[in-house]
Every structure is written in structure tokens, then in C-alpha cells.
């Protein structure tokens, strides 16, 4: 720490408040936040590139692993784009099952978020309770799909598993339990004094700012922006279902909590309708192995906000380009705005309030030159040279070996 009264502390890449590695460098004056620098890229896995190397069917399972929590969101979003290019008519029953899994996923994601939010404000009891109840929906997902996460339910042209009447009863029973518990959480979150003290007035984003900074999902809806892909541009079975888009005008973390717990209630409503209306018929159509050339953009309301996938096909069995815009990328810009003039103690909950999923977000990795504060980014030859020098300093020299290799490779 130097002597001026402003100093920087690193929150991340490794920090107890963050569930994934991401770097927030916070300039502090006492407890007050003067500025935040956000660096993404610690979780870059090259999924978009890898998707180009695999066939469409393999890509379903790859893209499902973009995110551990909204896995169904990503795979559905991708598949919708491919189905649009291939002009496949997905059977009604498959649409409904996709919707069902999507809403169950939203429930599990929102309950998980509620627990994380509780932990960030030092209220571990909420974490333990909501994660205990989350097990109910996880069990249902495991019964329906065989997996707790990364369900593997989707396939191009439909879904892979059907739902039996027996399972319908199980889901209805679970939804009843969850609804009762959620009512209790709504009560806790909206009436407990210490929770309200920690949440209200924190991380404020006005309606105009939410539009200007392009917030999505519950973050935007908590600022009064009525934006929900399920209602604006219905996909799967949402067009035939009746539900409300929850908005709130608190514009702060408290509002985001309210939006999420109320969305849980909407999800139960949707699930009941889906199970009631579930049409008979096949659950998938046969997909062609080769997808005709074309391109499509697909939107999907993931638990965290609008997920966008762009797929370009070139008439082979592999996509030419897959572009994923995860909701966190849209929301992470807002975090900087939210933290302005707040206290350090608000930092974890403000970050958590957008329900960040950084591994979905990371699309590139930027390697900076060491020991430099500037944003100098390595060029590829410079990085190559740097690695050779680094090993030379350690006493490992590959130059001789490289020469030998080159000689041997000579024709």
C-alpha cells in the first residue's frame, strides 16, 4: 500500500466472493469505491472455434457445456438456429418438453442465485435453505433427463426423451412443494430487515441507463424495462402459454431479487400449463446429416437474460461459424456503472446481482506483457519469442532440438 489515501485491491481472479475466475481491480478510498477495472478472459475455452471442427450433432453437446447452469438455454438456442437453416418442423410435443425443461432450469438457476445472493451478504441460512429446496427441482430434472445439469435432452429436430404420465404427476407434486417454499422466500426477501438494508438502494441502474447500457434479463426488468424474449419473440411453446413478464421499479439489487423470486412463481404457472396442454405425437423428426448453406440468428430467454446464437452453415455437416453472446456479456458493462460511489461491502452483492456466468461470457483471452500497466497486448511472434526466452532463463533450450527437427523434416 502506498501513501496516498487511494489504493487498489484485487477482487479476483481468485477470491471467495467469485465463483469463477474474473478480475475486478477496485480503486478504494477508505471503504468507498472510486473506480473498477473489469478484466474478462480467464475462462476462455475456445468453444466457438471447437464448434467449427465438429459435426452439428457433436456441437449440441459441446454447446450445452458453454454453461453449467443454463445448459439447456445454450443448446436450445443453438438448435433453434440450426433448425431454422434446415427448415425442420419441430413436433409440438417436443416444443412443449423443451419449454418444460427450460422452466425447470430457470427455477433451479433462480434458486441457486437466491442462495448465492444470501451468501454474498453474509446470510448463509438463506443459502442453505434455498439450495436444499433446489434439490427438489434437480431431482425432477434427473428423473426427466437422467442428468442434474447438462441434460442432453435436445437434439436437432426435437428432444431425445419422452415424458410419461407418471412423471407428470411427480413434476406437479414437486412444483406444489416448490411453490409453497417460494412463497416463504418472497416473504423473507421482502420483509427481513437486514436483507432489505443490504439490498435496497444498492447497485442502482435507472430505466434510461438500463436501456443505454443494454442490460438484459432480470437486471433490465428490475429497472422497469419490459424485455423478455419469451413474450417479445416467442419460441418453443411460449406463444401458446399465458404468463406475465415481471418488472419492478426499484432499479436496485432489491428489485432484482424481487423480480427473480416472482419469476419463480411465473415458472410454476408455465409448468402447470405445459403439463396440462402437453400434446400427443412424436417427439422428434429426422434431421438431415448435411445442413444446407445459410445463416440464422436465434434468441432465447435464459435465466440470466437474453442469449443470442448465430450459426452460419456452408452445406456440410459442420457449421462454418458459431457465435454465442451470453447474457452476462451484456450485463457485465452495467456492473461498473452500478458500483459507482458504493462501498466495498456492496461489491460482492452487486456483482452477484447480475447473476454472472463468466465462463459463458469469455470469448477471447488477452495476454498482456508482464510488468506493464498499459494495455499492450502481445503479438503472436512476440509471444512466441517471449516463451522461448522464458524457457531459456529456466535453463531449457530448444534451439538445438528445433534445428535438428528442421533438418530431419527437410525433404
Amino acid at each position, binding site marked *: 500500500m502506498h501513501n496516498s489515501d487511494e489504493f487498489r485491491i484485487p477482487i479476483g481472479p481468485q477470491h471467495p466472493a467469485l465463483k469463477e475466475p474474473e478480475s475486478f481491480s477496485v480503486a478504494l478510498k477508505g471503504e468507498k469505491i472510486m473506480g473498477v477495472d473489469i478484466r474478462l478472459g480467464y475462462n476462455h475455452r475456445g468453444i466457438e472455434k471447437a464448434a467449427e471442427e465438429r459435426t452439428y450433432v457433436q456441437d449440441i453437446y459441446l454447446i450445452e457445456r458453454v454453461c453449467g447452469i443454463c445448459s439447456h438455454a445454450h443448446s436450445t438456442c443453438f438448435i433453434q438456429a440450426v433448425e431454422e437453416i434446415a427448415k425442420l418442423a419441430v413436433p409440438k410435443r417436443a416444443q412443449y418438453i423443451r419449454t418444460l425443461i427450460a422452466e425447470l432450469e430457470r427455477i433451479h438457476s433462480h434458486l441457486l442465485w437466491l442462495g448465492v445472493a444470501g451468501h454474498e451478504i453474509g446470510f448463509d441460512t438463506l443459502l442453505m435453505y434455498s439450495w436444499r429446496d433446489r434439490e427438489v427441482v434437480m431431482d425432477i430434472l434427473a428423473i426427466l433427463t437422467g442428468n442434474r445439469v447438462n441434460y442432453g435432452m435436445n437434439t436437432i429436430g426435437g428432444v431425445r426423451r419422452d415424458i410419461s404420465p407418471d412423471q407428470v404427476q411427480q413434476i406437479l407434486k414437486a412444483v406444489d412443494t416448490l411453490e409453497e417454499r417460494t412463497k416463504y422466500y418472497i416473504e423473507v426477501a421482502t420483509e427481513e430487515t437486514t436483507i432489505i438494508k*443490504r439490498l435496497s438502494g444498492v447497485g442502482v441502474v435507472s430505466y434510461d441507463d438500463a436501456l443505454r447500457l443494454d442490460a438484459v434479463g432480470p437486471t433490465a426488468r428490475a429497472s422497469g424495462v419490459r424485455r423478455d424474449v419469451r413474450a417479445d419473440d416467442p419460441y418453443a411453446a411460449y406463444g401458446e402459454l399465458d404468463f406475465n413478464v415481471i418488472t419492478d421499479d426499484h432499479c436496485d439489487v432489491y428489485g432484482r431479487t424481487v423480480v427473480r423470486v416472482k419469476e419463480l412463481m411465473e415458472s410454476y404457472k408455465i409448468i402447470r400449463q405445459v403439463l396440462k396442454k402437453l400434446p400427443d405425437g412424436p417427439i422428434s423428426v429426422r434431421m438431415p446429416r448435411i445442413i444446407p448453406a445459410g445463416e440464422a440468428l436465434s434468441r432465447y430467454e435464459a435465466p440470466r437474460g437474453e442469449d443470442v446464437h448465430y450459426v452460419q452453415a456452408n452445406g456440410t455437416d459442420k457449421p462454418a461459424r458459431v457465435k454465442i453472446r451470453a447474457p452476462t456479456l451484456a450485463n457485465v458493462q452495467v456492473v461498473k456503472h452500478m458500483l459507482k460511489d458504493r462501498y466495498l461491502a456492496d461489491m460482492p452483492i452487486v456483482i452477484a446481482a447480475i447473476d454472472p456466468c463468466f465462463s459463458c461470457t469469455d470469448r477471447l483471452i488477452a495476454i498482456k506483457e508482464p510488468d506493464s500497466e498499459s494495455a499492450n497486448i502481445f503479438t503472436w511472434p512476440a509471444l512466441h519469442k517471449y516463451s522461448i526466452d522464458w524457457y531459456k532463463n529456466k535453463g531449457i533450450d530448444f534451439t538445438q532440438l528445433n534445428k535438428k527437427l528442421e533438418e530431419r523434416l527437410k525433404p
Partner: protein
Amino acid sequence: MLEFLFKVIVFPGIFFLSAFGLFVEYFDRKLYARLQNRIGPPWFQPVADLIKLLAKEDVIPREANRNMFMMAPVFALTSVITAFLYIPLWKQNSLFSFNGDILVVLYLLTIPTLAFFIGGWYSTSLYARIGSVRSLTQLFAYEVPLFMGILSSALLADSWSLKDITIFYAKHNWLWLVNLLGFAIALVSFLGKLEKAPFDIPEAETEVVAGCFTEYSGRLFALLRLTLDIEMVVGSALLAAVFFPFGLSLPPLLGFLLFIAKVLFIISLISLLRTILARLRIDQMISFCWKYMVPLALLQILVNLFLKGVIL
């Protein structure tokens, strides 16, 4: 002389205190877990943790002030153990007693916080420094209501000696009931001293990792953990002596069990508060202490002055 040494070192001194402290940690953790619908740790978990930490290497940051860093936990531990010697446990007299010992106990209980501050500050880690500044800031908020709450009871007894206070309340059977408001204030302030939720601001892990303790490891961290456990016992024993001064002339075994019950009752209140409340922000904590706790403590003092002047 031998008997005296036994009393200080074995029972009810250091050994008993450490064992009871570890048991209280278990009790607190288990209750906290059960209230949260978890199973919780087995009974030997605190002991196992302590042994594990004692067996581990001490890592001292290169930048840290070595002496200060190593001495802080020792200071903290010795001061809480010393404080215990002046508290009447299951008899009307304590091991040592003189007029004014209640103040000495209160100040001895302040030393750990200062030691944590020094240890955290000299470890030079940024998180530890923020944590130590926070724990010192917090000290200024909870110390006043804590002193006022505890001393209001002494005021009624008209003595600064813990021994005389217990004798006074033994004489006036149900008079301790008027101090219940003072007890509530002292208990809540005591949460700040123990750095437990909702006042665990200095070691809020999602903000400043482990606060003052961030850089501590191995034996030194074991000492700090033990200090916190013992502080919990000593604080609860002090609250029990001042606010629940009944049943002190029971036969030894019964009296001992009653003492344990009193301490565990106070610990369960602490666990309960920890379960149902979220962590406050430091500014909210300070305004809460000065806006609500201090006026309430003043009210308790007024009531006690009135009682003393008019009725007794």
C-alpha cells in the same frame, strides 16, 4: 501454592478453558448447522482442526513485521485467559478479586481486538489491512453500548467488583430481572466483539477474504482460533455472572452444571442471531450502535439509577 497453580493452569484455568472453548465452538457450529437444516460437524471437529493447524507450517509474509505478526496472537490469547480468572463462575467469589475488576475484565477483553488489528495491520496484506481497520472502527461502535450495558448492572449493585455484584444480587433475589434490557444490549454488542454475524464485517469473507486473519496460518492461526473460542466462553461467562447471578450458592456439582447451562444458553442466543440475520455494512453497524443501542443503554442506566435512589 500447588493448589493455586492447579487452579490457574488446570481447573478452572487454561486447560479447562481451552477444552470448554473447543466444546463451545462445536456447540455453536452444530446448533448453527441444525438451524440451517444441515447436519453439522462431529463433536471432535474443533479439536481436529486445532491439531491440524498446530501441525502445519507457519507462513509469515516477507513484507510483514515478524515480531508484531507473531506476538499479536499470543497477546490476544493471554489477555482472554487472564480475564477469565476474575469472573465468578459457579461460586460467589472468583479466583482473584478486587474492587474494580469488572473494568479490568472489560479492558482485557478489548485487547484481543487490538491484537487482531495489530496482527492484521503488520501482515501488510491489503485484505488484512482493510479488515483490521474495520475491526477497529467496529470497536468504537460496540464498545460503548457494551460497557454501558454491563456497567448498568454494576451500578445497581453499587460496586465495581464482580464478586460484590454477585453477592448483591444473591441478596436481592429477583432484582436481576430489571437488567434484561442491559443483557440484550450487551449480548448484541458482544456479537460485534466476537465478529459474528450480523457484525462479522471485519472478516466478511466475500469482501475481504478473512480480514485480519488473511495471512495467518499454522500455529499462529491455531492460537487465533483458540482465542476466539475462549473469548466466546469468557464473554458468555461474564454476561452470565453479571446478568444471571442466581444459583451461585448451590452445591459444587450442581452449580457447575448450572454455569455450563448459562453459558450454553448465551451461546445458543448468539447462534440464533447468527442464523436469522444478514451481515450489515460497517456504516449501518455504526449508526445502529449509536442510534439505537446507546440510547437504550442510557435508558437502562436511568432505570437502575432510579431504582437505586428510590427503592433500595
